[in-house]
């Protein structure tokens, strides 16, 4: 798919992130906006998936390890045709399919329930191992957060991914540098995350601008490195696309009010 079309989808997903969090009065816009290019590139250009055949056993799998960025995933799944835009009115509401964090039992297109940080990458590694064991040629993608990478489980999973030579696994780091209590460096420095990923046995690609669709698509299309799991560092901007949210810690888990939403939607027009 051409980059311009992908960018158009990304703008719509960003609008949906604003719309649904504003309607719910809660949710996590910041990390949803930083991951948007990755979501759209995966669902529109990279992954082998079909909303009309969403349980096809040979489909590629996606696990949102940073489950709080659900609004970005929901916006993308909707834009891709997994469910109607009307569901956004029920985001985070009783009986809704769009739970605060992705729920595999409720939401079409979701492959694992996530929200407890560190678990998604481990589940994704298990999927990749299971796929290899059963001869399933699918690929497994997961997006993890940089704050999430403080969880020990991320590194347990990484060790296992290398040990089992899971070259059908792609771990995408949304490196926006911010988490609830401040920057990564203020809270718990990640150190040289690239060196760590390499040391853990990943084939690592670093994308200078993880909010540049062309760069993201290119990285995701890079052929797998035989015998090694893939790790893509996306250097992103938290709150990307909404001027007053960009680079602001406070917008990790706070919804815009009506006035702010209006301004954000205006900025995301076109």
């Amino acid at each position, binding site marked *: 798919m051409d980059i311009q079309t992908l960018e158009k989808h990304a703008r719509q997903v960003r609008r949906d992130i604003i719309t649904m969090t504003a309607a719910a009065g809660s949710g996590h816009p910041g990390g949803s906006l930083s991951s948007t290019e990755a979501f759209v590139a995966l669902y529109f250009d990279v992954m082998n998936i079909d909303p009309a055949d969403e349980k096809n056993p040979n489909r590629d799998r996606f696990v949102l390890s940073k489950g709080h960025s659900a609004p970005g995933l929901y916006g993308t799944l909707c834009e891709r045709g997994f469910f109607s835009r009307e569901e956004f009115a029920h985001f985070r509401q009783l009986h809704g399919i769009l739970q605060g964090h992705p729920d595999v039992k409720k939401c079409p297109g979701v492959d694992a329930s996530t929200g407890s940080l560190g*678990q998604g990458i481990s589940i994704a590694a298990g*999927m990749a191992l299971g796929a290899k064991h059963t001869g399933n040629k699918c690929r497994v993608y997961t997006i993890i957060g940089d704050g999430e990478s403080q969880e020990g*489980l991320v590194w347990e999973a990484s060790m296992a991914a290398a040990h089992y030579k899971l070259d059908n696994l792609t771990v995408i780091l949304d490196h926006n540098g911010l988490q609830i209590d401040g920057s990564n460096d203020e809270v718990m420095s990640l150190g040289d995350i690239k060196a760590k990923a390499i040391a853990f046995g990943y084939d690592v690609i670093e994308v200078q601008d993880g909010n540049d669709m062309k760069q993201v698509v290119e990285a995701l299309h890079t052929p797998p490195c035989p015998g090694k799991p893939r790790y893509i560092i996306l250097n992103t901007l938290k709150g990307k696309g909404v001027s007053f949210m960009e680079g602001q810690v406070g917008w990790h888990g706070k919804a815009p009010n009506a006035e702010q939403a209006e301004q954000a939607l205006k900025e995301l027009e076109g």
Partner: protein
Amino acid sequence: MEKKAVRVAYGEALVKLGEENEKVVVLDADLASATMTNAFKKAYPDRFFDCGIAEANMVDMAAGMSTMGLIPFCSTFAVFAGRNYDQIRNGVCYPKFNVKFGFSHAGITLGEDGGSHMAIEDIAIMRVLPGMTVFVPSDANECYRCVEAAAKIEGPVYIRTSRLATPVYDPRPFTAGKGTVIRDGSDCAIFTCGIMLEHAMDAAEILESKGIHAAIVSFHTIKPFDEELARTYAARCRKVFTVEEHSVIGGLGDTVASAIICGGVETFRKIGINDVFGQSGKPADLLKEYELTGPQIAEKILKDL
């Protein structure tokens, strides 16, 4: 009487299951020679996955593998039910993934390794999880049936096993979710689970010698619980005692209490680990220290009757 540790039966049952069902895979966290999954590892090396000393990752890897149509059995020590609880809760139970947990070395009879390794709370934390089936086999034969049943259940299952070699009784009819009447009686009812059956039977013999006819009901399934059978025996005997190698908080005792709360019983007493941790020792000495031998159980029952 032949003796065999329930964990040994777990290992044997997995091998048999692996032969019948190629979807069965076994994951362990560097404890295959203790959880007895090494037999499966030897028989089906391509279906055995060592996850290293990383129990949390083992559970979520199993969750992922189950989505590919496999039936993973995660094996480690029961005490680590706490260590990977978040993964069992959110990674497996919340999405209702088809993952089994065969956790061994439960209770104080693991012996010399001491209190740091003695799970006295695993039944409690497992039974509170929605959709989780909880098996506590009382002997090797029952363990075979529990493993078979676990593979047939679509969803998470916990199987609690023990390290100590314990008596192997003649095979009894097995239905998941149903209790088993071991001996009938009407003066008091002793409800038990797991390897405490042996000691409950010893206690009943002592009571019998004093003219007290105790019924024994063994529950290999704590969840879903056979509330009807518990209520029937509570109503018949009106004096109820629960015996378990687990904390008296949250385990079999509380499961029974919830079931019979409106049953109008005269006496109810939970016999188990009294809200304390374990310690190192020989299994037989530990059972005595924590007052779980047949004579001690009989003494408590006599005091309350």
